């Protein structure tokens, strides 16, 4: 089990004059949940399609277990494409059995696995319905089942959370965490950064076809400036103006977020807040992934503008 990892090594791809990927490199180890984030068109989908062999790379290698990936080893990957794809007129169970068999399962194994996954994902009652008759959310669950029925050793999911209701998001999160706990490397892309922050062990941020930041969530957040969050419900607007060494970053409702200057005593802020009335929240917070992401993306805009 140790050393079972998916490596994307220096993968490049261009479409005519447009560079889609430039030396994209990252690894996902066994049991790791890797979040892949970036703006639209940054190259996440292209990377995944190349890993799955749907697209050919111009340069670079995708390795599994240290060996360049082949059609045979690709059958171990569970894949959820960005553009969902299922036969609309085929029944759910028939379709999943067919896909499982294409991944090398026998009919008996396939049926057992379909039974198990449709139950686990809450679509067991719809097994004999045509896919097109399902709601989008349920189609999404079937799509995930399609990525899981062959008991994959790697999971590559492109935007698995888009279009899901909160319950389905929980189901999906649970499945991904369980799979990772089984020792499966899981890569998924998402724009829901809070979700990525909560679920993932490591995160890669892509910009213009390049990996610009790739580390654990803690390490990524540690780099930034710390924020102070104060919730003082009775405080008048602008109560914090003029406090030395702090700048108000944002003010929503009764909540104020400060950026603390170097060596500034946060207790002074608390006293000022208490002077206005009760304080219901007072906390220090590292920068969120969303903030980090914004910074990274705006850097790119500045770079382009410069």
């Amino acid at each position, binding site marked *: *089990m140790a050393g079972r990892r998916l490596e994307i090594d220096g993968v490049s791809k261009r479409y005519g004059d447009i560079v889609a990927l430039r030396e994209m490199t990252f690894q996902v180890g*066994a049991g790791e949940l890797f979040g892949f984030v970036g703006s639209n068109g940054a190259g996440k989908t292209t990377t995944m*399609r190349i890993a*799955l*062999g*749907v*697209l050919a790379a111009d340069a670079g290698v995708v390795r599994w277990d240290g060996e360049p990936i082949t*059609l*045979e080893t*690709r*059958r*171990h*990957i569970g*894949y959820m*494409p960005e*553009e*969902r*794809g*299922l*036969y*609309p007129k*085929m029944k759910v169970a028939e379709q999943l059995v*067919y*896909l499982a*068999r*294409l*991944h*090398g*399962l026998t009919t008996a194994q396939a049926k057992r696995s379909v039974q198990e996954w449709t139950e686990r994902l809450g679509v067991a009652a719809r097994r004999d319905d045509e896919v097109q008759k399902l709601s989008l959310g349920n189609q999404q669950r079937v799509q995930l089942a*399609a990525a899981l029925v*062959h*008991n994959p*050793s790697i999971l590559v999911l492109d935007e698995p959370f888009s279009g899901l209701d909160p319950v389905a998001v929980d189901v999906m999160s649970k499945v991904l965490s369980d799979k990772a706990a*089984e*020792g*499966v490397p899981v890569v998924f892309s998402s724009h829901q950064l809070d979700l990525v922050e909560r679920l993932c062990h490591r995160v890669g941020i892509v910009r213009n076809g390049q990996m610009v930041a790739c580390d654990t969530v803690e390490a990524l957040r540690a780099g930034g400036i710390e924020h102070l969050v104060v919730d003082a419900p009775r405080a008048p607007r602008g109560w914090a103006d003029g406090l030395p060494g702090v700048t108000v970053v944002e003010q929503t409702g009764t909540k104020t977020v400060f950026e603390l200057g170097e060596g500034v005593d946060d207790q002074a802020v608390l006293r000022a807040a208490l002077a206005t009335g009760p304080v219901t929240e007072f906390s220090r917070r590292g920068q969120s992934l969303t903030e980090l992401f914004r910074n990274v993306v705006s850097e790119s805009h500045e770079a382009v503008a410069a």
Partner: protein
Amino acid sequence: MSSVPDVRVGNWEAVGLVAGREITGRLKSKAFIITTAATLLLLIGFSLVMKFVAGGSDATVGVSGGSVALEAPLKATATSIGQTIDTRQVDEAAGRAQVDSGDLDALLVGDGSKIVVVVKKEIDEKLRNTLNVLAGQLALNQEITDLGGDPAQVGKQVADAKAEVRPMEPPFDYNGQQLVIGMIAGILIYMSLLINGQSVAQGVVEEKSSRVVELLLATIRPWQLMLGKVVGIGVVGLVQMVVIGGAGIAVGLATGVLTISVSAAVGTVVWLVVWFLLGFFAYSLVFAALGALVSRQEDIGGVITPPLMFVILGYVLGISILPSDPGSKLIEILSMVPLFAPTLMPMRLAMGGVPAWEAGLAVVLVLALIPGLVWLSGRIYRNAVTRSGAKVKLRDALRAT
């Protein structure tokens, strides 16, 4: 995690899985069951109508009194000029009543030495001819007897005397039935190529537009997917062709509408199957490749119309020229050209009279073309099938690697 399971899928296993999905899906589909049943009903209905039209006699004639002796000569004369006459012996009064009621077309009366016929108003023109010929015969017989000859012997000699025809090139005798079978074979193969060929293109686009192709190509190779689809739809078309062709011929033979030999009938079905397979395989490879260029069902027509025109052209030429001119030189040549052979050759084969070398050459030429088509269409399909969105230009699909 347990050890990684063995998930190797052989080339042919993958093709088989894809084909299997097509076959089970289509055999169960309402469209397939309905078209097959409708075509069968149509063929059976056609056979029954033909039987009804062909059966029965041209006229029913009563014979009474002395003219009873004319019953046999009347039938023989009618047959000799291509008429069928039923006769009935009645007494004169009853016969007249039946003529009046329309049960009899005519009643022969008198002593049988000459023809006296009672009809209601007018006599049918063909029946009049028959009776005139018979009357002439009777007069002749009378003369022969008067001269001391034997009318029967003279009659035999007259019947045996025939012009001897010496053709320099014996023409093939196309009979009407074989022409009809040829036309039906043409219609069947044309419909089958049209329907199944378009199914291939639609199937390819369905996978593209539903994006399921991306999921499939992450596990199997493009050629396996394309070939599996062609084979699967081909098997379904074949089943349909054998059922319809076999049942049609069986019904034809059973009702007596078809009087060709059983071996000729079986030969027709076998050739039909051979040409369906060749034609379908060649054309559907092209349809699959061209279907891969577009991403929406509405755009299929635009890309598959050019090759489809060859199918239609072949069929139209065949159906419009062959009935009047079965030996047409133009059709004879075109039926060996691979583009037209799948529609024209089975028509000619069903009509009979095709030299073995022509039948063989047509098969060999199509077979020779197929590897080239496999290569070309495989290339187009592979390059185009994962590119969704706007129509992929044929030139780009050919060039890309």
